[in-house]
């Protein structure tokens, strides 16, 4: 199961979502360590890193790094694919996902993620199904 998802740019965490609780006071240290680790890894190199009890799976999208801390038992490639799926969902939702969205629409990022992952497990692998409720609510609130 996945424990957290972070999005960082230039080594700074822009977005974090925790599936299992980490005390807020411990988060900055964790985030700094983990992001630093991934940041310093070779961009062309392997995208899986060991980090204590978790395996870090990260993926670069432009200048942003998407990072998931998962159990060792989790299939790394699956998590890697999931990151692609998540970004795909965000692309489809925003039209074109850019840093501006990352900065200003964190709530939507949370929403999309919550539709896809419950309790650290992927629930919905169909982008269409993920976005359907969100788009509907958007339509309802704009009315």
């Amino acid at each position, binding site marked *: 199961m996945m424990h957290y998802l972070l999005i960082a740019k230039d080594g700074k965490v822009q977005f974090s979502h925790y599936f299992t609780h980490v005390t807020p006071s411990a988060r900055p240290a964790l985030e700094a360590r983990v992001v630093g680790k991934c940041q310093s890894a070779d961009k062309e190199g392997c995208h899986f890193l*060991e980090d204590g009890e978790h395996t870090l799976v990260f993926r670069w999208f432009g200048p942003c790094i998407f990072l998931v801390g998962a159990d060792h038992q989790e299939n*790394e490639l699956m998590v890697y694919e999931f990151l692609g799926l998540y970004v795909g969902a965000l692309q489809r939702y925003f039209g074109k996902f850019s840093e501006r969205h990352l900065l*200003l629409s964190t709530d939507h990022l949370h929403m999309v993620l919550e539709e896809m992952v419950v*309790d650290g*497990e992927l629930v919905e*692998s169909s982008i269409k199904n993920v976005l359907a409720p969100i788009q509907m609510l958007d339509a309802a609130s704009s009315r």
Partner: protein
Amino acid sequence: MALRKVKGNLERMFDKNLTDLVRGIRNNKETESKYISQCMEEIKTELRQDNLAVKANAVAKLTYLQMLGYDISWAGFNIIEVMSSPKFTYKRIGYLSASQCFHQDTEVLMLTTNMIRKDLNSHNMYDSGTALTGLACFINGDLARDLANDVMTLLASTKPYLRKKAVLLLYKVFLKFPEALRPAFPRLKEKLEDPDPGVQSAAVNVICELARKNPKNYLSLAPVFFKLMTSSTNNWMLIKIIKLFGALTPLEPRLGKKLIEPLTNLIHSTSAMSLLYECINTVIAVLISISSGMPNHNASIQLCVQKLRILIEDSDQNLKYLGLLAMSKILKTHPKSVQAHKDLVLQCLDDKDESIRLRALDLLYGMVTKKTVMEIVRRLMNHMDRAEGTMYRDELLQKIILICSQNNFQYITNFEWYISVLVELCRMEGTQHGGLIANQLMDVAIRVVAVREFTVGQMALLLDNAHVIVGPAAARSSIAEVLYAASWICGEFAQLLANPKATLESMVRGKVVSLPGHIQATYVHNMLKLYTHIIATAEEEDDAEMIQEVTNLLLERLPVFVSSGDLEVQERASCIVQIVTYVQKCHQHGDKIGPELSALMAGELNPVAPKAQKKVPLPEGLDLDAWINDPPSESEDEEDEAYKKEIFVKHESTSKHKKEKYEPTEEELQKLREVRKAEQASNPYYVKNSAASVQGFTRVDQEVAVEPIYLNVPLKIPGMTSMDKYQMVDGWQESNKKRHKKHKKRSKRKGPHSSSDEEDAGPQAQVVNTDVGEMPEGAHLSDDNDADDRPDDDPHRALDINLDEPLAPNEVLPTRSHYEVKSRRRSRSDDKENILTNEVSHKKKSRSKKDKKEKIKKSKKEERKVKKSSRKGQDNLILDLEETVEDASRTDDIPIAANHINGISEENSTEKPTDDLDFWLSKSDSVPPATDEVDEVRATDTESPMAAATPGNEERKSKTSKSKKEKKNKKNKEKSEKKSKKKVKDEVEETVSRNREEYEETNGTVMQESESQAMSQPVVRLLAQDSVLKLMYSTAAMDGVMSEVLVSIKFINQSSKSISKLELNLPDSSSLKMVRIDPQSEVVSFPWELSGGEAQEANLSFTAADDTIPHKLRGFLSYTQEDGVNSDLPVRLEFPVTAFLSGKTASRTTFTDLLSSGQLSARSSFTLPNSQLSFSEVLEEVSCGGSMEVVECVDQTASLYGRSLHGHHVCLLVKYQESGRLTIDGKSTEGTLLSNALDHLKTSLMQK
């Protein structure tokens, strides 16, 4: 009030929203913290307002700030306020905030129970969805206990959106409230066959997580998962299922055998790398669990290794990494097949990615053989030379040592080479593994007697060049530890030294004082040993000059150590100074003291077994907790502690080193040794170490194995040319020459001890002393206690629950029904259950009346509810929209696995999955199923609920307190049957009618009831008949995984002769297909023989492409009678649309949800003006013949529900008037299906 609202809205306009906050933070980069603290103040004022919109906005901002690392725990209560908002957009903000900042110990959570329950039960599915998602993050034990039942209710929701989220939440519920696992498990299991792939996959996820921790409890689910695996095309889910199998196979090797084939097929066919990787992983797990007895065992290994090679060769570094990772798993059991790919692994060592290099190193560890070890180590040393970063170099060093030392130096054939490697490693700058090298040096020196002399020589050189090793860079490394080993080895085996005096001189040289205390202490002590040796030999040779020299040397140098700051060094040094002066005095008197001195150090070191200390039996009567003296007063305690601190503060650095940490004074030592010797001599259990120990001191000219060593790493005697370190010689020849040269040099210096026997270099084995070591009496190394090594507080410990045991009546989820109206309605079924168990038989009549009243009340409530929900039109509008969107896009975007395996699904699908794992597993072994096995299937098919219930009952009877209840329960059941018998005028023999009214209310809420539902037996129809054979058949729709119709055909032999060779020839039609063992053949043969009058039953499965129209299949049955007469019997299998219906998932809530959701667009009805049947007969016919389930029945009206194989819903309302006028109204999602179903019902009702 209105004014206030307007005012609130006005104020709101000036508030910052989240976007403003983000922009603000970016615009105030320099003064960020100031800006944020200002925002915090604003937020605090916003939170004090009554307007929920303002509050929600504030909480949204807080959530963002929390993400930036600011503490918002003070706002817990405000978050709850926002969570409880009736407006969904606010509620979502609240839940999101809660999910990110609440945790299970958050105190305000106590307040949320009822609010969350309300949200879970909300009509708006998004309310419940949000609550489910949020709850997963912060659920605690109390919430789990209180809400478990509500979550369970959501499992039965009509909306897959909620079902899947509820299923996933269950995992957390189980973790926090393990008692819920058993009562909830049957429902969770059901979800594996949910029509919605999302729900299925959620259930798989949960069970996969559960099973990973306690696999043995989930073995019985293997058949279900197997079926899912062979039928699913959802790669995300397949990965999880296959992972689950990986956890199960170690427990059940037969399962592994069954898995191998489909998995290898998947490996061949899939294009998804993640799936491929998972398959390989599981195949590896399988192969590990079945080490032998597989015919194509090697083929599978080869396949895996091959595929992994492709992964490793891929340019994608991720695949490379995973390939290496998986390879290392194979390595453990099948090293040979991996060793073939050594080239590839070595290649990876050169990869620029460090994590890949590390993985490759892991692999190397296992790939070493006697032949390859030298080459591999040479490559690694080469690497180390070039490697950047001390971290990686350290890792390399450690790996080299691990590779060489594994399994008691299994792969080392030439220990001189190994010693050279270790010496070489000493030269590595800044390593943290000095201790490791030192350990290895000592280990080899002590245990490999043959190479001891060589080692001692090398160590002497090391000591001589200590200043090079302990260079300026040594401060941050632990390389000095090597000197610890070197000095000890030289001291202990002083008799092997070429030039003891020179070594002694190098030991006392100045630099030593800068070494860590514990190393100095060893130095000092070993000086004494060396001294002793020199004196003893010099006395023998009457070399007074030598004696004089060394004595003076020590007396001159030792005072430095006497004044050492280290307690240990000081103590030993002063002791030795005394001994040396004493020796000097003796010599001045002309006495020879050599032998006495040697006695100080006599005795051979014996290895002690690693667990020896633990195994020392506790002496009888020893109580370590008992006070020896009266407990001291507290003040004394403090003093004591202060005192202790003072003493031990200097000791700390030595605590790591076990050897020679504490050394008694020499006199003491001698005494102790003598005592020990005496003890050993008289101890019958003490195994005298005859040969080895004698060697220790008496051996003078031991033959040293000196053979031409093919060193890939040149032997460099350290110190001679200190700066040109690691001068690697690539050529074979060159290294050889060099080696010879050096060897000669060395042997010259060896002095009298070594006979330079380079020429007769016989391949003498260098034996490692691999004794277990000394153990206390009666203890064995093997008796180990392998208990559950999980920590006590691991929640998964509590989840180790046997799930196959039938549920006890008290095992129900806790419900809170006494104070909340809403929840009472929901949990009524449970209450009902309690009533059932508590009721005593003589209350029978009154009860049934009461029941009726209740039912009426309830139905009214139900109606009201329907009205209410229709009033909430807006909600439902959204719902409808959503539902259709979901249905339409169900299969969209799911990655499709390439072709599925031919023949696999057929192989297993002819029989219904039984719970009997053994049977399932053995099935593949026995190709033609024996007669009794088929019987077994039949038994499990139809009687499983009963069978499952009885053993449980009997078990519980032994507990007297519960047994009474149980009996009552039983009586009740019997009663209900009787009651139903009264109602039905003409009892149909084959169909046992259960009293539905007993069960309908509990539908879907309590497990026992759903089990009893399955007892309803379908109508048995005549299939074909002649004078000899009669065939009856019944159909049952198995909606769920395979969407199959199960047809059980009963063969009744009406003659007195036995019949054999029964073969059913039943060609498929275009849309109805039989699931066959052999897909090519249209003939199904039955292996058994029917003796006269015997009856047998067989099950066939069919899949229908279109389940909205009735189907027919024609064929014939051929058989041979005892007297050899062959006959054919024409067969006509009819499948009315109702055969595709199943009411298994019916429940009142889903039913009303369905009706109110408006999905049921198709309507149809018919009326029979004067039916000849009674109401109950009609109901019987509709429910059994039509395979629908009665959802509700009031007086002469009943509503029924059924779902088709392809997931169409059918709802019927049956109205019966006393005059015999019967009206059946139907609603469905599928028009053709409905009209066909009603047509069928009409004709069958008319015929009766």
